[in-house]
């Protein structure tokens, strides 16, 4: 329990540095190190879930320097929730990559960059200092630029360049915002910032910095109108990386950071929430309209990511307890079923060599497990009961109606219907129908990929269990309270917390 918090970035960084040292020549060493590290992180995140329920807020001061002087790691309900989401997804994707990355060269470099990205994301979730957030955000972003370019074919390089340029512009906006905040408040610790803003008032600076942060973190999380890099980056990247990007990276670097800063540091007011809701609704509609016309499997999934992120931002932007609960639950669900969908598309590409929906057909007969898990994930994302997507979308719509935003509720329902339509298209063209002559001899994908897809599908089926009050008191409710507590976060962090 003591010193648990720094283990999260430390284990992943240790893995990232050990892999090129040891895993270069022998086969299987880098796989083993990645597997052990991500399994350890997964176990630690479950332990942290129980600890945060028991103690409600933990503060670890790095080097012993107490906040607000030093950098601290803070574990509250929201951090524990995001840690569990991140580490489950990265563990299962690491298992998947053991077989999938055989098709690329230099697997140990992939694993090293992967562990760096996981280290960056763990750091972003845990940190309590705004410049430290920026540093970890850059670690994760730069690792992801390199990972998108991993295959170094033409499409991948073009997509990676576009992503890297937009990501760097986003980071510059965020850094400029941090500079302005530091000039105004003379402190970098998020809890102390919150206290100073309450005492001094926002003035003209706070709306300006809010706009800079919405632009910067909005580019990172691919909200419309900042979404242009996502539909290019996802199809070209290896499937494990598309799953990581869409499943965790855009949420942690974008939505989590934005929510933490807007809710706990600045304090939300009605105008900020309205902006978030409008951006969310626009992303919802534009994402799903652009997705229906796509014939490339992964590009279609990428546009759906934009749309589902719109759902999450719309729900969090409602600001009511039920809305935030719905948004966070949808964040978890989306990580699970979107990663599963990308892993399925990777399996299809591994077996057939193509991503074009028009060229596929009837894959169900030769790849039963991929087809079944893909069907489960498509039902989940479209919001069909009893899968997990249904419950989170239902609560989002109920929360919209309860706060009187009927227009946004109608937008959410329309988006859901169109999502169902496009996934019916995917299922029909890829898995059902007659088997294409070219694909007579394809086989099911290797065991590691099947195992990973199974486990994701099981989480999809049973995730509704997380809403039962006994269990949600451990998992989702602390996260919801952490966001709703607003400025009280500062009081609790500076007042002690344990350690």
């Amino acid at each position, binding site marked *: 329990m003591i010193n648990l918090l720094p283990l999260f970035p430390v284990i992943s960084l240790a893995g990232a540095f050990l892999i090129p040292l040891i895993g270069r020549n022998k086969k299987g060493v880098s796989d083993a190190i990645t597997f052990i590290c991500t399994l350890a992180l997964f176990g630690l995140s479950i332990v942290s879930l129980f600890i945060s329920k028991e103690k409600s807020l933990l503060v670890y001061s790095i080097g012993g320097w107490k906040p607000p002087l030093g950098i601290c790691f803070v574990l509250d309900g929201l951090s524990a929730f995001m840690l569990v989401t991140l580490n489950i997804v990265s563990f299962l994707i690491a298992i998947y990559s053991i077989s999938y990355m055989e098709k690329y060269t230099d697997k140990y470099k992939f694993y090293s960059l992967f562990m760096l990205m996981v280290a960056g994301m763990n750091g972003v979730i845990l940190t309590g200092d705004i*410049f430290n957030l920026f*540093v970890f955000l*850059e670690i994760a972003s*730069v690792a992801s*630029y*390199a990972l998108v*370019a991993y295959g*170094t*074919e*033409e*499409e991948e*390089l*073009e*997509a*990676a*360049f576009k992503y*890297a*340029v937009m990501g*760097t*512009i986003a*980071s*510059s906006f965020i*850094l*400029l915002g941090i*500079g302005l905040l*530091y*000039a105004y408040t003379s402190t*970098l610790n998020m809890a102390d910032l919150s206290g100073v803003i309450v005492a001094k008032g926002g003035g003209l600076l706070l709306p300006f910095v809010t706009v800079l942060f919405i632009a910067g973190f909005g580019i990172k999380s691919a909200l419309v109108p900042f979404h242009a890099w996502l*539909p*290019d980056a996802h*199809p*070209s990247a290896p499937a494990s990386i598309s799953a990581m990007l869409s499943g965790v990276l855009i949420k942690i670097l974008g939505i989590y950071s934005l929510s933490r800063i807007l809710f706990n540091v600045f304090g939300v007011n009605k105008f900020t929430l309205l902006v978030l809701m409008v951006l969310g609704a626009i992303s919802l509609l534009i994402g799903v309209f652009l997705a229906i*016309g*796509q014939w*490339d499997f992964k*590009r279609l999934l990428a546009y759906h990511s934009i749309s589902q992120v719109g759902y999450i931002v719309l729900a969090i932007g409602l600001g009511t307890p039920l809305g935030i609960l719905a948004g966070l639950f949808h964040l978890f669900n989306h990580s699970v079923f979107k990663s599963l969908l990308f892993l399925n598309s990777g399996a299809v590409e591994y077996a057939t060599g193509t991503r074009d929906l028009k060229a596929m057909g009837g894959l169900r007969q030769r790849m039963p497990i991929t087809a079944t898990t893909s069907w489960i994930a498509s039902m989940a994302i479209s919001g069909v009961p009893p899968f997990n997507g249904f419950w989170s979308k239902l609560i989002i719509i109920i929360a919209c109606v309860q706060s009187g935003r009927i227009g946004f509720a109608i937008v959410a329902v329309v988006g859901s219907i169109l999502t169902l339509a496009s996934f019916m298209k995917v299922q029909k063209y890829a898995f059902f129908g007659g088997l294409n002559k070219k694909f007579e001899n394809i086989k099911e994908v290797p065991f590691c990929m099947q195992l990973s897809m199974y486990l994701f599908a099981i989480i999809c089926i049973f995730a509704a269990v997380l809403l039962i009050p006994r269990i949600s008191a451990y998992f989702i409710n602390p996260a919801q309270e952490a966001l709703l507590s607003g400025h009280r976060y500062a009081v609790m962090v500076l007042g002690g917390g344990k350690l």
Partner: protein
Amino acid sequence: MFIYFLCLILFCVGLYCALRRRNIIKIIIGLSIMEYAVNLFFILIGYRWQGRAPIEAADQNILRMVDPIPQALILTSIVIGLSVLALLVGIAIRIFEKFKTFDITKIKKLRG
């Protein structure tokens, strides 16, 4: 006050360059200009009127020092900018090998 505006104008110049240039290398230079502008802004924030370098000296009568924290922050930021620049230039070299051009209007394989 004037000097902060100049710094932000430099930032906008870099942003314009990154948005409107067609050559990949010029886009990368635009991004670098943006990063330099943000680093410069940090240093300007730290300045105190007639302050001296933030170094303790037991035998001198120090009236005022500039703020050392932004200086530490931009050291980190310069290193991050360097690593991003190295990665971007590496990607640009590979793009030249594959596409035989640096012109982004000709690098358009991904559509839709």
